[in-house]
């Protein structure tokens, strides 16, 4: 089922310190607190204006720097279901998968849209429509897709351990 999302567009090499500042990483625990600081040092307007279903569209090497998973969870808690970037830093990419937030490696989309525009994402067909352009989403490996489908690594393992305990 294709879904329409409003986009927030950012540039290249956006690092985790501006996505979720390091000074909060050992003290903020509640979902509300973590969400409240999303993109704090990149785009202070984001938290107040973002709505569930909005998505990030970025340039190259999104999420470089620290391994902190809150740089993904803060966006997930705001309601961001997927992040499109020309490329991701490797730990950030894995953190997206493990949080059940779909990472889409797609060069060119950040240049095709502006903040506030809408895109339509058809996960089944693997395409994104932006204005009059169509972008193909790269397919994920089955093992990665299984983690996304389970809603993330922790939910997936939970089911596995429950099954083990029951057998």
């Amino acid at each position, binding site marked *: 089922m294709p879904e329409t999302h409003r986009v927030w567009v950012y540039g290249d*090499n956006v*690092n*985790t*310190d*501006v996505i979720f*500042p*390091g*000074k909060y*990483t*050992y*003290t903020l*625990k509640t979902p509300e607190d973590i969400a409240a600081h999303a993109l704090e*040092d990149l785009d202070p307007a984001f938290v107040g204006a973002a709505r569930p279903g909005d998505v990030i569209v970025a340039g*190259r*090497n999104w999420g*470089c*720097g*620290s*391994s*902190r*998973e809150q740089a*993904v969870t803060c966006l997930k808690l705001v309601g961001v279901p997927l992040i499109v970037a020309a*490329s991701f*830093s*490797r*730990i950030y990419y*894995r*953190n997206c998968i*493990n*949080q059940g937030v779909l990472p889409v490696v797609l060069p060119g989309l950040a240049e095709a849209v502006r903040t506030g525009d809408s895109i339509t994402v058809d996960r089944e067909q693997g395409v994104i429509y932006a204005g009059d352009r169509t972008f193909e989403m790269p397919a994920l*490996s089955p*093992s990665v897709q299984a983690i996304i489908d389970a809603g*993330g*690594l*922790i939910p997936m*393992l*939970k089911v596995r*351990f*429950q099954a083990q*305990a029951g057998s």
Partner: protein
Amino acid sequence: MTASEHGYTFVEKALARAAGKRSARAGDILDITPDLVFSHDNSAAIARLFREIGAPGIRYPERVAITLDHAAPAPTTLHAQNHAEIRQWVKEQGIRHFFEVGRGICHQVISEEALILPGESILGADSHSTHYGWMGAFGAGVGRSEMAALWATGELWVRVPESMRVTLNGRLRPGVTIKDVSLKVVGDNGVEGGLYRSIEFTGDLLPALSLDDRPVLPNVMAEFGAKNAYMPPDQVVFDALEAKRTRDYTPLYPDADARYEVEYTLDVSVMEPQIALPGSPDNVVTISDAAGQPVEQAFLGTCTNGRLEDLEAAAQVLKGRKVAIRMIVIPASAEVLMEGMKRGYIQTLVEAGATVNTPGCGPCMGNHMGIPAPNESTISSANRNFRGRMGTPEAPIYLASPYVVAASAIRGVITDPREFL
């Protein structure tokens, strides 16, 4: 030659071994069982995820290490509660490799304790886990969910990365260090230059590097986007691990005909000291292009440059001189601190007007012990200078070698250290 005939890179060999397979190639997805996994102040959050999974217990508790280093000693009650939760968890789970406040930075401590050995694999809930390339181990960073999964199952999926070979030839001139080389590699190729790759070093510079020099290169490769980094281990490495190791090991070396996606070669003999300008570790210029920039704080320490020879380098510059700005010195471990005291480096630094803090990460990631005010610049021996890294987005961070940090502290502006050597 067919694809199956060419040789293997280090990472192909190391991950095949970690997955219990005869061989692997770039692009393969493997389930590996690391020899050690570790986390730090983030362990309480990982323990909460672990409980959510509902596993009966940690699969291999003897393969788990935890250090308190990122905000240690605790700067606030909330941080103290976080540490208390971790201590409780360590006790409950019987985790033996636990290192208290002041023992040092995870990468330094795990290396000193020989908890990981050449040819082995280590995953850490810390981006600078590329560090362990100094001994020829596979080291990579993972997120908190992945660490919880590793505690629960003992294994994790990895994709075998493509590799980049970095050849470093020549001898460094006086006053030029391996930190300068590391910054130049990132500066020349950009922060994405090593994205997803195994960075495998070679060249005639490597055998000449001291034990304290070696971790700098693989540590900084985290800023290069690397998955892991590798330096071929030799007798210097084997000797360092001999006293404390508790098991045998077999080092790994890439085949001469291994296939590299990218090659980069540097003649270090013509290099000048380098500076990464604020904003990104790849904003790298030679010292003459940054000299004279005012700085309000000098910071010597971190997993990159907080070892004994780094204290020695700063002491050499500061002996009999005074700092003009505040200078914070944080040894990477208690061992470094003790040896630095024995050799008089700590005394020299304090006499020069520097102050010394508890071994750990210090202000590197903006937690405590030297957070700059907005618009105050710091010259730092750390590895990362992204906007906001030290706690406030308006505080510029310059990255450099310990020599440059010390020389700049004397003048209060970025200074070429060679006039003091």
